């Protein structure tokens, strides 16, 4: 026999308005199945809730409060000027960037420099991927690109030396937070000996000073004195550089 529990109207209102946790909701749903009176009370409250909603849905909103306003001639003209500016600006920027970049899905958000040495060197390729943002989309791009490059070069006779350098917010990638990208990077490090992960010492010190504690980095993360000096040093020695 199912024991009847008395539910207050406030409690049932909270049920209707989805303010209860799953356990409480399940208990009420179970009680409704065994108690016709309770079911009736819940039904009345639900009906009231729906009625109020329906009633005010039909209220006519004045045109000037509607989100989709027809643009006036003046706004159209203003947007026209802004659009033309961006069109010209975009065309110039696009032409300039095209001089230095090859068309590639990754490169639309990356800054790339190739040293002349790399072009001539056909036995190995030294590449640095630099990330300074915590944007998960970009972090995943770094990992996707690193993974595919490492896999591709592992099969070929060419040697790849890949360095992932992190600074500023990019430290998220190498901080051991148990995130999916942390685990992915760790797996890559374990699988490929030619992958080195580096962190900017200056950024690391700043964060540690601000937080008053040591950051837990992924194992085998090398701390370099500064990201800029590392980039400059690698470029001087003929490394390709991609900032993502």
């Amino acid at each position, binding site marked *: 026999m199912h024991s009847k529990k008395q539910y207050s*109207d*406030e409690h049932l*209102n*909270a049920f209707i*308005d989805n*303010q209860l946790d799953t356990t409480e909701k399940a208990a009420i749903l179970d009680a409704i199945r065994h108690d016709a009176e309770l079911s009736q009370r819940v039904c*009345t*409250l639900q009906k*009231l*809730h729906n*009625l*109020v*909603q*329906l*009633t*005010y*849905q*039909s*209220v006519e*909103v*004045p045109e000037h*409060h*509607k*989100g989709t*306003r027809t643009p006036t001639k003046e706004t159209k003209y203003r947007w026209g000027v802004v659009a033309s500016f961006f069109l010209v600006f975009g065309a110039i920027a696009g032409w300039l960037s095209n001089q230095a970049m090859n068309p590639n899905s990754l490169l639309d958000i990356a800054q790339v420099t190739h040293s002349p040495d790399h072009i001539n060197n056909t036995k190995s390729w030294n590449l640095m991927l630099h990330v300074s943002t915590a944007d998960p989309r970009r972090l995943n791009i770094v990992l996707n690109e690193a993974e595919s490059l490492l896999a591709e070069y592992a099969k070929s006779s060419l040697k790849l030396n890949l360095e992932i350098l992190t600074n500023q917010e990019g430290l998220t990638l190498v901080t051991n937070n148990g995130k999916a990208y942390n685990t992915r990077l760790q797996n890559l490090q374990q699988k490929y000996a030619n992958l080195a992960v580096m962190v900017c010492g200056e950024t690391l010190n700043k964060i540690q000073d601000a937080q008053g504690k040591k950051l837990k980095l992924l194992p085998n993360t090398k701390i370099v004195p500064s990201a800029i000096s590392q980039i400059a040093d690698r470029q001087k020695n003929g490394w390709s550089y991609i900032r993502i």
Partner: protein
Amino acid sequence: MKALEFICRSTTFKKQLEEIRPRLYKVAYSWCHAADIADDLVQDTVIKAIRNANSLRDMKKMNSWLFTILSNCWRDYLRKQKPTDDIDECIFTNDDTPELAHERQSITDIVQQAVTTLPQGQRQVLSLVDLEGFSYTEVAEIVGIPMGTVMSRLNRARKALSEQLLELKEQNVLRQGTYIRIVK
């Protein structure tokens, strides 16, 4: 970068404000049941929101922030109208006339009529929960009352509304009954 962030934030702010405007109007209307007052309330809310845009730190809270401004505008309006009354317990007079009653046929009119008889505090909580789907905690913040009061006002509002609707329904059925004619 900061300038870019500022432009992006400003664009998002304006876009969201435009999107929420019709909803602000509907809620304002449910409180005052007068198109011109609802219009003024939303205008005031939008002006105050634009002037104080900098005080909104988290864009995710823009929705409840705007309704808080609307609630304050409504409070100010009521203070100006009836300075000596307790605004939470103020019951609106129902300016009903036989002509208006005759026009009211649909269920929405009946519900609106029932809502007008609710005390202001109860009506405000009811519309925020039922129309906008705010949580009790959010309503407490918007109206500036404890959550327990939100729950009790909502309960009283629904109880009164239920009774009112039953009564109005009976009246409406009786009234409709007088229109039935047998044509030979």
